C-alpha cells in the first residue's frame, strides 16, 4: 500500500461515537455568527442592529476573492454587531441573532440539474452558499475550484480519511449521506474539469467504504464511473492535503506551492456534502456535523449543529461533563485548540469538541533535547523539528525560514513523539505568526 513518509500510528478512540447516528440539535435561542469564519479576508456585515433576518439569509460578504459569505443560521432579530471572541483565539466582528419573529424570505434556488450547470455557475453557487473547507482549515472552496489559466487539473481527491483520533463526524457523514458526497464530488470535479475522482478513506472505516460504493448515486453512474474509492493506510496525518496526494497519486507538492501545481485538488467529504446540499436544495452552509467526545464526557455524540450555537448549548444537549473534566479542545487532540470559554460559538471549521479529564490534560515540563531524532523520523513534511525549534528559541528568523518552517503542516507529530516533551509544534506556530508579522512590517 502506498503511503507518505513519516507519520504515526495513534490510538484512535473512535469506538464510542462511530456507531452513533448524527442527531440534529433543536434550533438555539441565540446564535453568535463571526463575520470571518474562513482563511482570507473578513466580511462586512450586510445587516444592521434591529433587522429581522430569516434562516439562510446572507448577513456578511466581502468583495475580495479569497473570502466566503456567512449566513444567518436561525430566523430572528439582529441584537448586536460587535467584536466578540472567536474560537481561533482572537476577537472578530460578530452578528448576534436572537430567535423569534423573523422575516420571511427564501434561500437561493437553483432550477438546473448538475448536467446543465456550467463550471462558473457551480463556483458561483459554492461561493454564495459560503462553503469553506469543512475539515477544519476553512479555506474558501470556490478559490480551490478556480485553477489559474494554463493549469490542468486531472484529479479531484475527496478526503474521507479523518485521521485525527476521537473525531467521527466525517465517518458518520459518509455512512448517512453517501449519496450527497458522491453528488458533491461530481459537481466539484465538473467545476475544476477533473477527469478522475478519488475518494480516500482510511482502512479503519470499512463500513464507510461500503456505504460509498453501494450508494444509489454511484450505482447510477454505472461502469464508466470516474469515481474510485480507495482504502488508504490508517496513519496520522493521512488526511493532510499533501500527504493524501502523495499516498493516492504518488506526487509530491513542491515546497511552498499549492496542490494545483501537481494537477490535483483536495476537498473534504463534508465540503462535498455541503456542495450537494447547495446545488440540490439551495441550502447555504448553516449547519455542520460535530463530534462531542472525550474522556471528560459522560456520554459521547455526533451532533448536527447550527453555526453560531455556543459550546455551552451544545454540551447542554449531551448528558453533561464528568467531575474531573478539565480542558475542552476544539478540533482533534493533535491539532485542536484549547477553548477558553464556553460562550464561544461553533464555526464552520469546528469538527469536534473534545473534553479531556485531568489526567489527559496534564502538561509535562519541557526538558532539553536529547538528539534522538524521532521528530525527524516522524515528520510527514520532511522537516527537522529539532534544529528548527532551536532556531526559533534563538530567534534566528533567517535560519527558521531556511529550514522551511512554512512547510510545517502543524500536525503535532513531533510534539507527540518527543521524549523530552518539547513544545515543538507550538514553537513553529508561533514562529509562522512572527514571520508573517515581520513580512507585513517589511512591506
Amino acid at each position, binding site marked *: 500500500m502506498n503511503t507518505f513518509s513519516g507519520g504515526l500510528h495513534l490510538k484512535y478512540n473512535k469506538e464510542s461515537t462511530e456507531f452513533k447516528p448524527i442527531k440534529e440539535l433543536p434550533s438555539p435561542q441565540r446564535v453568535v455568527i463571526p463575520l470571518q469564519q474562513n482563511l482570507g479576508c473578513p466580511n462586512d456585515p450586510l445587516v444592521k442592529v434591529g433587522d429581522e433576518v430569516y434562516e439562510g439569509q446572507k448577513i456578511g460578504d466581502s468583495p475580495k476573492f479569497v473570502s466566503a459569505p456567512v449566513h444567518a443560521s436561525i430566523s430572528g432579530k439582529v441584537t448586536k454587531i460587535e467584536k466578540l471572541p472567536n474560537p481561533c*483565539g482572537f*476577537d472578530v466582528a460578530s452578528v448576534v441573532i436572537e430567535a423569534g419573529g423573523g422575516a420571511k424570505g427564501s434561500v437561493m434556488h437553483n432550477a438546473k440539474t448538475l448536467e446543465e450547470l456550467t463550471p462558473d455557475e457551480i463556483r458561483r453557487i459554492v461561493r454564495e452558499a459560503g462553503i469553506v473547507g469543512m475539515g477544519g482549515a476553512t479555506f474558501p472552496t470556490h478559490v480551490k475550484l478556480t485553477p489559474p489559466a494554463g493549469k490542468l487539473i486531472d484529479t479531484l481527491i475527496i478526503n474521507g480519511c479523518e485521521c485525527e483520533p476521537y473525531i467521527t463526524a466525517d465517518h458518520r457523514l459518509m455512512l448517512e449521506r453517501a449519496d450527497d458526497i458522491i453528488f458533491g464530488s461530481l459537481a466539484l470535479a465538473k467545476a475544476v474539469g477533473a477527469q478522475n475522482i478519488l475518494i480516500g478513506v482510511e482502512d479503519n472505516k470499512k463500513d464507510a467504504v461500503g456505504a460509498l460504493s453501494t450508494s444509489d448515486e454511484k450505482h447510477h453512474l454505472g461502469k464508466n464511473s470516474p469515481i474510485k474509492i480507495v482504502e488508504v493506510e490508517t496513519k496520522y496525518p493521512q488526511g493532510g492535503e499533501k500527504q493524501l496526494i502523495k499516498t493516492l497519486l504518488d506526487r509530491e507538492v513542491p515546497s511552498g506551492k499549492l496542490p494545483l501545481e501537481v494537477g490535483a485538488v483536495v476537498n473534504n467529504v463534508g465540503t462535498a456534502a455541503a456542495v450537494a446540499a447547495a446545488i440540490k436544495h439551495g441550502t447555504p452552509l448553516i449547519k455542520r456535523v460535530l463530534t462531542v467526545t472525550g474522556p471528560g464526557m459522560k456520554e459521547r455524540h455526533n451532533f448536527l449543529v447550527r453555526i453560531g450555537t455556543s459550546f455551552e448549548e451544545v454540551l447542554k444537549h449531551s448528558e453533561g461533563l464528568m467531575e474531573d473534566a478539565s480542558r475542552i479542545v476544539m478540533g482533534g487532540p493533535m491539532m485542536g*485548540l*484549547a477553548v477558553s*470559554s464556553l460562550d464561544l460559538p461553533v464555526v464552520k471549521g469546528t469538527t469536534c469538541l473534545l473534553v479531556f479529564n485531568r489526567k489527559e490534560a496534564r*502538561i509535562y515540563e519541557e526538558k532539553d533535547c536529547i538528539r534522538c531524532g524521532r521528530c525527524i523520523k516522524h515528520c510527514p513534511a520532511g522537516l527537522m523539528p529539532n534544529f528548527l525549534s532551536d532556531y526559533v528559541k534563538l530567534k534566528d528568523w533567517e535560519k527558521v525560514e531556511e529550514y522551511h518552517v512554512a512547510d510545517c503542516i502543524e500536525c503535532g507529530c513531533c510534539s507527540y513523539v518527543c521524549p523530552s516533551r518539547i513544545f515543538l509544534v*507550538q*514553537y513553529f506556530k*508561533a514562529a509562522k*505568526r512572527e514571520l508573517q508579522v515581520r513580512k507585513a512590517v517589511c512591506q
Partner: protein
Amino acid sequence: MVILISILVLGLIGFIFAALLGLAAGYFKIEEDPRLATILAILPGSNCGACGSAGCHDFAEKLIKGEVLVSGCLAGGEEVAHKLAQVMGTEGLVIHKRLATIHCGANEKVRTKRSNYSGIGTCAAANLIDDGGLNCKYGCLGYGDCFCACPFDAIRMVDGLPVIDPEKCTACGKCVVACPRAIISLRPYANPVWVACNSRDPGPVVRKICPVGCIACKICEKLVPEVFKVTNNLAVMDYTKTGINCDPAIEKCPTKCILKL
C-alpha cells in the same frame, strides 16, 4: 656535516618564507583610518545593532565614511556622542536622551484572568492564543520577552511586570520590538511622567477587569490640557512637552495610572 647541511637548508627556507611574508605584508597592506581604533574604544562594544549597523565595528566604519551621524549610537547616548563628536570634529551637538517606558501598570497580583495559559512561556506565544488567558487585550503578559531582549540589563521583572532602570536604559529600542502588544515606547529622559496603561477598551470594561487601567474619565485632560488628551478611550500624553507640572493630574487620576519617576 649532515647537521650543518640541514641547518643551512632549513635556515635558507626560513629566510625565503620570511622574505615572501614581508613582501606580502607590504603588498596586501590595508590602510586603516587611525581614528577607527579610537572610535571603537569609545563605542560601548555591546554590538546591540540598535544603530542599524551590523555591530560596533560596522558603525565605526560607516561613521568615518560619513554615512551615519555621531549621535547614531543609541546605546552610548549623550556621553558617547560627545566623545565621538570630538574625534570627528563635529561641533554644537545637542542630544536628547530617551528612555523606554512601560505603558502598563498591572502586575500579576492585579491582572485578572479568564483562562489558564499553559503553553510556551514567551509573550509572543501567549499572545497568539486567547490573549494569553488575560482579560485585558492590551496589557502586559508578564513572560518577559522585553527582559530577555534587553542587552543592557536595564529591565527587571517585578511581580511579572517589567521595570526600567532609567540609568541603565540606553533607548536602543530592542524591547519596543520584542513586545508583541506594543506596550513599550521611548519617551524623552527629561520627562519623568508617563501613562501606565495601553488599554483602548471603554471605561466600564476596564473598570471590571483592571484596577489600575485608564478608564478614559478625562480628568487629566481637564486639569492639564496642554499635555493630556484622551483618544480611543486612553489618556495619551505628549511626551515632548517637558517642564509642565503634571502633579494635579497624577493626584486626581482615579485609578492612579499616571506615574512619575
